[in-house]
């Protein structure tokens, strides 16, 4: 095993071992091993097309929906192999929530957007508790004060930044254990971006968080651990402060100093 496969955590929430992903004949991920724990926000950085999204989507089996995609290797959640036949993929996706690059609220009311996951998983036995879940999630997503008077408005009528926080509230409402975010700020303006980053800070500790970003300042601001991807391999994984100040690998240094990417 490579020395840069940070397998140091004693009790990782999720861990990947030698994961390979193929799209048809083309290999997009070439053997990645990583541990993700509850205490640290993990950032994936790297140039476009290096496989950050692809790898992120193996963690909640979203790649299953792409017919030509094939995943090899082991990925565990609390020690349980998520690709084993015993794993229920629907429940897995509830436990490992996802926030996408482009805000994608349902064309339903703000309330229904947040309540949806809780409803389908039967998390609220009655209306009062569902209301409570919706309120809590919106509060934690930092959106409550902005929308509390118009919960029945369409979620698609919000601004881009609000929509993305709504999507985070929607993910939180299912009470997941891990939240995966794929460039959640790339479609947002700097103020909305700052709000999301603040939010990530607040969510840390309660959820294991993985965030993909091509913005290195963002990675430095929100994460405690950073993984640098290049051409389908994970070049380096370590404490964010080390990666940015004292990278071990030549390619990492080139990337963070802006020589390519």
């Amino acid at each position, binding site marked *: 095993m490579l020395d840069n496969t940070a397998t140091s955590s004693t009790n990782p929430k999720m861990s990947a071992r030698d994961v390979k992903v193929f799209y048809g004949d083309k290999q997009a991920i070439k053997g990645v091993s990583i541990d993700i724990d509850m205490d640290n926000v993990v950032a994936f950085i790297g140039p476009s097309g290096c496989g950050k999204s692809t790898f992120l989507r193996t963690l909640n089996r979203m790649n299953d929906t792409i017919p030509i995609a094939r995943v090899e290797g082991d990925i565990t959640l609390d020690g349980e192999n998520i690709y084993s036949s015993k794993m229920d993929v*629907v429940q897995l*996706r509830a436990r490992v929530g996802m926030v996408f690059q482009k805000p994608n609220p*349902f*064309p339903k009311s703000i309330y229904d957007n947040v309540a949806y*996951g809780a409803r389908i998983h039967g998390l609220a036995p009655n209306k009062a508790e569902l209301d409570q879940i919706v309120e809590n999630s919106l509060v934690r997503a930092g959106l409550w004060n902005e929308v509390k008077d118009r919960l029945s408005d369409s979620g698609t009528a919000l601004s881009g930044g609000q929509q993305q926080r709504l999507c985070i509230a*929607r*993910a939180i409402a299912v009470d997941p254990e891990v939240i995966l975010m794929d460039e959640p700020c790339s479609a947002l303006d700097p103020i909305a971006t700052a709000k999301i980053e603040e939010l990530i800070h607040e969510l840390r500790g309660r959820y294991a968080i993985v965030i993909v970003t091509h913005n290195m300042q963002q990675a430095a601001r929100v994460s405690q651990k950073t993984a640098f991807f290049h051409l389908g391999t994970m070049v380096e994984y370590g404490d964010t402060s080390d990666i940015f100040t004292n990278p071990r690998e030549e390619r990492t240094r080139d990337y963070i100093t802006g020589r390519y990417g």
Partner: protein
Amino acid sequence: MPANPQTPATGRTKTDWMGEAMQKRIARRYAAERRFKWMGLGAVALSSLFLAFLLVVMVGNGAKGFISTEATLTVDLPAATGSISPEQLTQPRLAATMASIDVRRIFDNAVQAQYGEDGARFFASTAWTALRDQLTENPNLVMSKTKVWLPTSSDIDRAAKDNSTPEAEADYATLRKAGEVRQTFNWRFLTGSDGTDPAQVGIWGALKGSLITMVVTLFLAFPVGVLAAVYLEEYASKNWLTDLIEVSINNLAAVPSIIFGLLGLAVFLQFFSMPRSAAIVGGLTLALMTMPVIVIAARNAIKAVPPSIREAAMGVGASPVQVVFHHVLPLAIPGIMTGTIIGMARALGETAPLLMIGMRAFTTTPPDGLTDPATVLPVQIFLWSDEVNRGFVEKTSAAIIVLLVFLLTMNAIAVYLRNRFETRW
């Protein structure tokens, strides 16, 4: 104008945005825009003209079909029935009293008395039943000599409406000398069924036949079509088998309707021995024809649902069925309904396949269920247009109006429903 039009960097002459050539180009562009606008307007005007022409001609011809001609007949009932006491007209004995009256004979006598030996030919062959109905409704008529309005024969009806044969015109003149003539709204046309006398036929039988057939078609074609589309789009893996199915469905939608009629004949009538002329068989046959249209429309509507919505739903742990029923179908339903409207409108207007399965039943009573012999509006129109009796011409046009109103109502309901389901983004 700059002194040096040559830009050193590219060696290209500097574009003269204000020059004559540029102005000409702008003028040409405006001309092209105008031309296109007029061509578009012309196309819209032409199609509106056709539609208006169709409506005017149809309403002009058909309006008369909704009018019937009636003539008076003076009936001296007390003289004809002998004395009937008021007690005989009260409840327990009323039925027996009415049964004892020979309305037919009274009618014949009254006609002869008023219009001469041959006067019966002025009236519809069923005019005496109209007299009977009026008596049943108002038994007190029996107590006095009264004047009643009864439907005329279709010859008189036509002579009263436009010019007709010299004999008919002569009859009409005779009739007017001996009695009065009026034109009233022909309720019978909306409540009655087919018949041999054009003055007495109605459209309700065919309308009801169409209604039942359409309900059968919708209840079969819509759910099956939508489920097939969902399966093909969301579940089936892409391989040669699904490709083959896709090609087959596309071809099926283009198959001439009469072939579906032959299919219905072979499968439902000959193989399953279902009753001939029945609305259920018509509905099944039309469902076969409509299903591919709905499948294609539904697949396109489902394809148009953004993948990001599916991902969002799966991302919070929605199962495939939940993704389809909570997100994909609600967003696709307006498109599906547009396809369904087109398919159903086509089915409603279909004649050929229904002739193949015998839905040209001559029935003087409307169908009462799925298996009763029935006919449908377009077939009724086809049959009437083929009648030798000239009186059917206006009935044909009137039936076309009813068919168009049915079609417009059906479409209006569908468009209303579609707009209600439309999601605002």
